[in-house]
């Protein structure tokens, strides 16, 4: 059996220039990865190279630079498709990010399937980006947003999910991993239940893409969305994966250049996939950066990253839980990426402010998931979210700092 080399977060850190700085004269401990990840040098260099040497508008240009940029762009699409296990490159649509991917879906699939009084099924732990577009779609059609209950640990109530599917929602859209609680949802089981009920599925992979292997073919999900910037790639690029059969049927989202076949003043016929959904000039540099980031992550191995991060999260949970008065919000058995917590009865803003002064980048607030906070009856939490470059030493230092906050605040 082949043994993988030991996972070395300390070595990986060296690839990320932003991690090596001081804030308030203290070494930065970056634990806000669920908001955005830092970028490795290869990605920064890729952006720089593109703008220095290759910058050009893509597709249809007859000249050399345009052809080169087009080839690179389409290669990035193929790499992205392979990374998520998609069968066909044209099933990958490039967007601005997860939010735009879901807005595209709500608009386009909404026009295809939504009828007056129709419904959409989500869960109680969605980020606002996977809640509001569907909520608004339902409002436009006097329909109903169906929300799957969570149990007291912050896990999906599968029975309730199955029950709600009986109401025949046009789609079931849910997070792979909760950005507020860290819960990993049983997506394979949920997809099976949805498909048994004849309901297509969208998975919000914003929080999973950097933390566990994703294979859309094996999962058999109909749609999968994520943002590049949460997987070590530049901001401004995201992905909508959709099964070809769906994308062919769905109407375009935005109209403009590139996405058309024939245009006259009377009518327009639209281009083939994936261009039908990519109106206007795309963020070519960011797409190439995404390709570089995914190749970089592939060399390290997403499965190895997941295993390392799992041990890091377990270590952090054990140490944080040992602090007097500390409350971990969300106790899911299967979890990854984030830990949400509160220090005694203190307000998360206080803890976050003190941790900031000690050099820790954590997030405080409702994490764009206000309904989740309501379920747990808290105004917000302090959220530490890890990435593959975080070390056990950093987690130990976080726990010491939280202990210090606890002394000051309780």
């Amino acid at each position, binding site marked *: 059996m082949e043994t993988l080399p030991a996972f070395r977060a300390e070595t990986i850190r060296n690839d990320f220039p932003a991690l090596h700085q001081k804030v*308030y004269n203290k070494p930065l401990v970056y634990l806000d990865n669920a908001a955005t990840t830092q970028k490795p040098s290869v990605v920064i260099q890729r952006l720089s190279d593109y703008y220095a040497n290759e910058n050009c508008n893509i597709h249809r240009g007859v000249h050399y630079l345009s052809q080169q940029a087009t080839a690179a762009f389409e290669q990035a699409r193929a790499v992205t498709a392979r990374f998520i296990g998609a069968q066909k490159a044209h099933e990958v649509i490039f967007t601005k990010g997860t939010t735009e991917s879901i807005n595209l879906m709500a608009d386009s699939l909404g026009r295809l399937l939504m009828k007056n009084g129709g419904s959409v099924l989500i869960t109680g732990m969605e980020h606002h980006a996977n809640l509001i577009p569907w909520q608004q779609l339902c409002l436009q059609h006097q329909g109903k947003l169906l929300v799957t209950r969570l149990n007291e640990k912050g896990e999906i109530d599968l029975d309730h999910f199955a029950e709600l599917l009986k109401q025949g929602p046009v789609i079931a859209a849910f997070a792979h991993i909760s950005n507020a609680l860290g819960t990993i949802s049983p997506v394979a089981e949920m997809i099976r239940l949805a498909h048994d009920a004849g309901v297509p599925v969208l998975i919000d992979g914003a929080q999973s893409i950097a933390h566990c292997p994703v294979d859309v073919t094996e999962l058999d999900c109909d749609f999968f969305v994520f943002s590049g910037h949460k997987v070590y790639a530049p901001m401004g690029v995201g992905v909508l994966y959709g099964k070809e059969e769906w994308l062919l049927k769905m109407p375009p989202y935005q109209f403009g250049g590139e996405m058309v076949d024939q245009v006259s003043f009377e009518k327009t016929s639209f281009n083939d996939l994936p261009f039908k959904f990519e109106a206007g000039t795309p963020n070519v540099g960011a797409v190439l950066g995404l390709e570089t980031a995914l190749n970089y992550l592939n060399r390290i191995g997403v499965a190895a990253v997941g295993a390392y991060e799992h041990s890091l999260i377990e270590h952090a949970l054990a140490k944080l839980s040992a602090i007097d008065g500390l409350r971990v919000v969300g106790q899911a058995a299967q979890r990854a990426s984030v830990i949400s917590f509160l220090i005694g009865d*203190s*307000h*998360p*803003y*206080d803890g976050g*402010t*003190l941790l900031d*002064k*000690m050099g820790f980048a954590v997030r*405080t*607030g409702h994490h764009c998931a206000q309904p989740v906070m309501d379920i747990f009856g808290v*105004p*917000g939490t302090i959220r530490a979210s890890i990435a593959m470059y975080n070390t056990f030493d950093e987690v130990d230092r976080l726990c010491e700092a939280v202990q*210090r906050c606890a002394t*000051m*605040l309780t």
Partner: protein
Amino acid sequence: MTIEQTEQQIIEEFSIFEDWLDKYNYLIECGKDVPLIDARYKTNNYLISGCQSRVWLHADFIDGKVYFTADSDAVITKGIIYLLIRVLSGRRPDEIIGASLAFLEVIGLKEHLSPTRSNGLLSMVKQMKLYAQVFKLKMSN
């Protein structure tokens, strides 16, 4: 004592702290001395919504001077409220309207009044000045 003198006093108090955390410890202690808003005013009508931490503010006008009471659910926010009230409470409306509150920058707490902190403090200062303007208007009528 004038506003400037009170500000100077606070600057001197904070000058002894070299470590950030000592400063915040002191700030948290200060918060315990905020003249608390009467429970009947601790409602949404007096809430300054800051998204992250909440601030309630009330003002009375007695003998030509404005007196503030307040509260917050975050103790660091409360500490800064204490400082603001110490500087601005018991002053004539004109003094409050004209106050620059430059001391916050000197003691290194100005960031808490940044619009991006969404802790309600910036809105609180605006609200304090608004109270002063309203009372000034009432006085001249």
